[in-house]
């Protein structure tokens, strides 16, 4: 990647603005899954660890890479898994509002 520091800074600022725009529309009901989902997105740090692993040397570098790989992978795998688990709990009521709700919870 050769866009340089200023290029990266431009991308950063623009992505920040896109983030503000998109996320300000998320309702409060979904704030926990949103944070958990954003959490999984910062698991992208694993991509950085892969890049890192291609040039590190020596025991110190290897230890840092190993720990970073474990951290990043835990972040990305666990983050997406738990967000999905959470979101599948959000469901509509099965029948129109006024009718009694007899059958529910079988998919819990």
């Amino acid at each position: 990647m050769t866009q340089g520091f200023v290029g990266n800074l431009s991308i950063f600022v623009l992505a920040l603005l896109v983030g503000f725009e998109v996320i300000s529309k998320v309702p409060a009901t979904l704030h926990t899954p949103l944070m958990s989902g954003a959490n999984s997105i910062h698991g992208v740090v694993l991509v950085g660890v892969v890049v890192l692993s291609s040039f590190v040397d020596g025991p110190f570098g290897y230890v840092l890479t190993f720990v970073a790989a474990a951290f990043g992978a835990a972040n990305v795998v666990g983050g997406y898994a738990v967000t999905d688990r959470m979101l599948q709990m959000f469901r509509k009521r099965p029948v129109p509002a006024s009718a009694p709700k007899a059958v529910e919870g079988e998919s819990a």
Partner: protein
Amino acid sequence: MSLDDGVRLASLFGAVCFVLGLHLMNSPATARRGNQLSAFGMGVAIIAVLVSVTDSGNMNATRWLVLICGALIGSGAGLYSARAVAMTQMPQLVSLFNAVGGGAAALIALADYQHDSHVSAGIATAGVLDVLIGGVTFSGSLIAAAKLQGYWSQPVNFPGSRLVSAVLALVAVAGGIAVIAGAHSPWLLGLVLIAALGLGIGMVLPIGGADMPVVISLLNAFTGTAVAMAGFVLENATLTIAGALVGASGGILTKLMADAMNRSVLSIMAGGFGTGATGVDVGPGSGGTVKSIAIDDAALQLAYASKVIVVPGYGLAAAQAQHEVRELGELLESRGIEVSYAIHPVAGRMPGHMNVLLAEANVPYDQLREMEDVNPEFDRTDVALIIGANDVTNPAARRPGNAVSGMPILDVDHARSIIVIKRSMASGYAGIDNELYGDPKTSMLFSDAKKGLASLVAATKLVD
């Protein structure tokens, strides 16, 4: 098209998936698909980078081994915790993911600098910020997780803690400036990391339990920023974009949470309010007398209402009474009563936490109502049933001059009658009396949330 272009396009695709995935989070109906899209984009980005490093010819057996072993162990741990965690423990898990994400980002900068310290001032600045923010996030999030888990929840202040933090900050800044000025010493950056770890501990230790939603949001924003900085260090746009998105998300949530408590982020970081230090039993301060109500009478009131709004607070989750409240809600609905749940933004231990807890108990999401949306409806409500919520219902917030002044509240006092399920008259985190309890329309049902709700369900079933 070269392989490099292909890898870049795949990374761009990943970034687009992140943005669209977040966009789909704007409705509960599409949110799950959004998360899956985001995960798919992540998979593509990871495969692309794996192809790229394989093609570079720089990978050898040791490097692969280190990477794969680390990733496998991490994946296993992440998957296990994602499956095993109870929904009440979500804030802890999110904190832990903040910790590992920030920690990994800090390690990237450190390892990169250790490999080659002859970097431009711009990249050195990003590296220092990465180590600093990532380090603070790592230790701060671990402390936050431990507090949320209940190892200790009281704010911790020891004499001279401010001085220690000030010294650490000085060390971090001085070390950082030296690195940026071109010291070429990995040990110096290591020193910045150690100082940052200390700062993180010093930052979160004095913060009280009620301020946790703000702290988690802030640490989330920090993690995103640290990852974006790692993107600068590695000159990798995927990291920069994803980090910026998370930074924006955490920033917005921090602001929303702080606003919902009418507190500035700075004053929270300084410690104080969320301490619950004066949480002793006190009488009602508004001059009114407190009226208590028997279970049977409360059941009658509920059973003959036509519109009931339930106001759940963290006390409900702490008592694990989500299923009982859902059962009561369904029972009332089966009598043709309109039931909804009014959720204050800071109900729970992280933004939106209460919604997840109720969704887990099978409350349909269209019954979960946000504060601004539901407040006008209290005027038409027969019974407001408050369970485990306190400060967010205190009408004193509308007047200046007290601890909750200006805090947005649920207008429960506009309802025709109010039933409060509460163990005692103890005050909330703000440490002041709730004037609502002295209101002639209010009746107190002194009980644990779980037991009280279970008896209410039983009594309501007996009402013809």
